[in-house]
């Protein structure tokens, strides 16, 4: 899962090869390794393909409603009356009780950071100009530890690196109503709740 150049000989550590058998009984092991340059210099033949694989995923009963409420600037959850859990993201079934969930419950757009990380890279592996905090945020009004994944802004990166954001109270920052489209990105990010530290 690492970046390709994790396998390259970089300056800060030393790659050492010593001959040794996988099994004492096996004398040879197979495989023809290539270098990145082999591709660039045309030393190896290749063929290319970009698949045509497009989808329209149906959100279904629970998530369609969730998206509709996001457009209204609200977060909605489902409650199971058997175990009493209020679940977000919402689902029509309770995975613990294996029964249908019973009712819709609006929860707050505030919450508490359960865990977080600080991304210095983009989804495509490029370096970000400015590091970005992403967090699991347990939503107020839902059951304990019912978190959602989102971004957090307005926090000090050095404090974040020092582990100071655990338990921090945050609040959703919404797009203006006219720009919302019924998507998780209708919440732009979460920011620290004012008046709390």
């Amino acid at each position, binding site marked *: 899962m690492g970046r390709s150049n994790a*396998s390259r000989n970089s300056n800060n550590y030393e790659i050492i090869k010593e001959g040794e*058998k996988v099994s004492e009984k096996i004398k040879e092991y197979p495989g023809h390794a290539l270098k990145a340059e082999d591709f660039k210099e045309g030393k190896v033949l290749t063929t290319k393909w970009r698949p045509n694989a497009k*989808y329209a995923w149906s959100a279904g009963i629970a998530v369609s409603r*969730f998206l509709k409420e996001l457009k209204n600037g609200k977060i909605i959850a489902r409650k199971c009356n058997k175990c009493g859990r209020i679940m977000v993201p919402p689902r029509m079934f309770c995975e613990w009780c294996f029964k249908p969930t019973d009712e819709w419950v609006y929860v707050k757009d505030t919450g508490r950071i359960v865990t977080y990380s*600080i*991304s210095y890279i983009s989804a495509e592996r490029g370096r970000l100009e400015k590091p970005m905090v992403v967090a699991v945020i347990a939503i107020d009004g839902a059951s304990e*530890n019912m978190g959602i994944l989102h971004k957090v802004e307005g926090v000090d990166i050095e404090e974040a690196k020092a582990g100071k954001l655990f338990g921090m109270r945050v609040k959703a920052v919404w797009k203006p109503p006219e720009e919302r489209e019924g998507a998780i990105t209708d919440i732009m990010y979460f920011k620290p709740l004012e008046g709390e530290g």
Partner: protein
Amino acid sequence: MLIKKRVAVVGAGMTLFRRRMLETGREMCWEAAKMALDSAGLTLKDIDCVVLGTAPDAFDGQHMKGEYLLDGAGAWRKPYVRVYVGGGTGVFVPIAGWWHVASGLFDTCLVIGEEKMSPCHPHPQYAFSTIWDPILTRPLEPNLIWIFALEMHRYMHKYGIKKEDIALVAVKNKRNALDHPCAQIPAKITVEDVLNSEVLVWPVQRLDISPVSDGAAAVVLCSEDVAKKVTDSPVWIDGVGWCLDSTYWTNRELAYPKYVEYAARMAYKMAGIHNPPKEIDVAEVYDPFDYKELHHMEGLQLARKGEAPKLTKEGVTQRDGDLPINPSGGLLGVGNPIGAAGMMKVCEIFWQLRGEAGKRQVPDARTGLAQAWGDLMQVGTVIIMRS
């Protein structure tokens, strides 16, 4: 009901693990499978059925990848199936192979793990952008490392673990890999090297993680009757366990891998193991990230919650320690062609239990364990083997 049939591993093989290989996926499968058969003194004719494991089709760039690979896997006109539990697949394939033989339907089974991640451009990372819920998560454009960083951070926070203690795992495993001829990134590094390496997603740095790899690995399984005919030193599969946790990972406590615990308990029960740290002589624990080795040791009941770093610091998990972990060099040192990486661990336990591991050999290894992990921090797969 009791399990009546015992299943043995009688041969193992693997290719080099490298960032880019010339071989097609099916050629890599053939290389590993052929090596496993040769080492068992068997030919393809002797094989009754084939089980293959490989992770996302989006790496190799091949829809229905299991179908594509099958002739290289030796499945021509044989019963064949691909099983799939994300990153947990590598250790799950021999588990599926186990039930093919333990069911009494077959005497021999060829088991293969494969991954060719290099075709995916601009970076194999792309494949990971499609593992998320397309409606609730993909719009946030997540990077895979986000979630592991979230898990690592939670683990550190909950048990008060320091990054330098976690880095010791990377140092150990990359060093162990120096003795593995197939290893992709063996190295002598220090804790400082890890802490000074590029920050990817805090707290994950570059030397905390395993590389992108191409490779394949294979083992040959057979029934007790056949095992006795083909070898004097079979290695028995005495326990299997697997478990999948909820999809809703943001609703779970990430500090502890309960799914690994449940999988391990299932396998320990079957193997009659009551005191894992005492009874397991060597373990190959899934380590795509350094913290995962610690996390998984705890899930496997090899260490108490939050105490795996301490054992590591004390040297207990070194090859000459009381509980050697990842003597192969693990994914951090040998490489991480996902579907093949777990199989590499199973091969390593096989070689360790046969006393064939050369410089990597752990003394007196009689009972070994291999474990893998995958999906959305969700799957545990565990196999227990005895000489």
